[in-house]
């Protein structure tokens, strides 16, 4: 006998989960699979792809030139993290100590930049920093320097842009972690003979480690892929993973290679997320 036993809640579940599942399937899973498939295909003559199995893209990833770009990107993301951390930690500490009434306005200042597109804000910086920009014009007019200082279109400018864009992503998790810190722990450490530095190392740092890791992940992952920062601040001079992928698709029209780099980026991201969940579970133990 054939009897279909349907979960009575099936329809309800379908109604609730269905739309978002469909969305994720259409706009995340399918494109993702397509990118992975594409990375194993042969390059089409005028862009696009031919469905013919090839490992050429992956081979060229490991060519010395592209390895250099990958390394440079990882290094840049790492530097961005470190600088963001050095800026955000003291700031978050300060933020958790200010009186309640100032707290809101300071938080607003942290979040406010999100209201304007990062692209616009970076172009603003470009206007300020370029050779004929506000800073150089001012310095020349006042006679402090004769020739403009080249600030834009360097790796330094890219790093600056990265840090500028990413700092809020570091501040928010750090602030959560630091404001949860029980002040009596600091008093207890000092009471037991630890000076300020030792208290920081032995008590404050371990207690805020989850925030540091969360912030690092949230800065590191987008830093790897943010192509527009390298484009606007680095001009054509600086190639990073993000704008490399963009160039492969739009300029060089080597879609399989672009796809292969995308897969590489996804792998990096997954590794970082794995690390994060590991540390997240450590947090529960603490």
């Amino acid at each position: 006998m054939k009897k279909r036993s349907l979960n009575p809640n099936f329809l309800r579940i379908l109604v609730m989960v269905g739309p978002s599942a469909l969305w994720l399937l259409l706009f995340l899973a399918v494109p993702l699979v397509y990118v992975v498939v594409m990375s194993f295909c042969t390059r089409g003559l005028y862009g696009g792809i031919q469905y013919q199995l090839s490992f050429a893209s992956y081979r060229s990833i490991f060519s010395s030139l592209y390895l250099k770009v990958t390394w440079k990107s990882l290094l840049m993301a790492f530097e961005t993290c470190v600088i963001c951390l050095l800026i955000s930690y003291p700031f978050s500490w300060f933020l958790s100590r200010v009186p309640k009434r100032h707290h809101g306005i300071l938080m607003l200042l942290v979040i406010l930049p999100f209201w304007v597109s990062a692209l616009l804000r970076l172009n603003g910086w470009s206007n300020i920093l370029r050779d004929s920009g506000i800073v150089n014009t001012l310095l020349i007019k006042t006679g402090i320097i004769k020739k403009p200082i080249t600030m834009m279109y360097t790796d330094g400018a890219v790093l600056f842009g990265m840090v500028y864009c990413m700092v809020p992503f570091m501040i928010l998790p750090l602030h959560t972690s630091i404001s949860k810190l029980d002040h009596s722990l600091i008093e207890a450490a000092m009471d037991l003979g630890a000076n300020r530095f030792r208290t920081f190392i032995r008590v404050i740092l371990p207690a805020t480690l989850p925030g540091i890791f969360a912030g690092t992940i949230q800065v590191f992952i987008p830093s790897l892929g943010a192509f527009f920062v390298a484009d606007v601040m680095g001009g054509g001079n600086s190639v990073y993973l993000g704008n490399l992928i963009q160039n492969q698709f739009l300029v060089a029209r080597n879609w399989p290679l672009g796809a292969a780099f995308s897969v590489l980026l996804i792998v990096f991201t997954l590794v970082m997320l794995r690390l994060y969940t590991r540390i997240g579970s450590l947090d529960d133990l603490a």
Partner: protein
Amino acid sequence: MSNGKVIAQLENITKDFDGVQILKPTNLSIYEGEFLTFLGPSGCGKTTTLRIIAGLETPTEGTVKLEGRDVTNLPPYKRNVNTVFQNYALFPNMNVFDNVAFGLVEKRLGKAEIREKVDAMLQLVQLGKMGKRKPNQLSGGQKQRVAIARALANDPKLLLLDEPLGALDLKLRKQMQLELKTLQKNLGITFVYVTHDQEEALTMSDRIIVMNNGRFEQIGTPREIYEHPQNKFVANFIGESNIFEASVVSETGAKGTLTLMMENGHVLAEGEGFKYDEIVYLCLRPENIEISTVSREGFTLKGFVRDHVYVGNIVKTVVELPNGKTVQVNRNPHGELITPGMLVNLFWDPKDAVVMHTREDYVYDAIEFAVLGK
């Protein structure tokens, strides 16, 4: 008990917060080996005083001395004083062993020495096998013991305890009270203890400082505080009291015995240094008042029995005076039969009555009303 040697001194200490003086000029000597308790309602400044001794708070004015040395501006990590915090403040990322070892590591002792010391401390607080546990795996009582062991491991000259038993349930609290007292006696370390629980203070202390509104109301042994409160606040705060207003009419023949005029009659009480016609407070513990159908010489106070409750070893009787005020009386259940509605005489042994000068600043009554609802 103390050997009379001063270990810490507060000289003219005051503390202001946002322009409000929450600690009035305060002088105090703490003696070696004593169990000293700051007792008072919340917000009376007792915790602030403790934190000033610990160095966690800087006094606005005045000097803190430890063993004769001025430490007023020394940070807590340079004082040989340790604190047991109200919420324990155990380091969540460290296990019990590392928590107790914290101060020893800061002193840069050797590994073997630290292990020996920590093990001894854990043994002392009966947590010998708990060294590997994390604080969140401990019960409240166990956390408390770890906090005490962690502080004692540093051999402090002075152990400060800020309501350490406040978060424990009643039974555990009673047990820990006795344990703490035993520990203090055996170690001979000076304990400075903060509590708002009068029973806790009476049970454990060698000396009690009753605090209110940023000042010391009375300093004395538990017995002195209970039997001879110096003012209305102390009388009200410690135990149950009946407090009457009266005026001094005369001194009777016996030395020190006063005849006092109350609204509803005159009574006898012992006291010295009171002037004729002075308005005083008269304080009587419920267990010291007797009621009877027979009157007593020197007393003309009468009232109606309103209510009585049998609670085993005593009968709690409420007597209403003609002016409407009620008097709480605790009686022996085997005494004279007294039933509600009877007109009775109230009297007492003049020695048991405590006569107090009224404070000129009757702001006090308002504060008491706010704090105690009396």
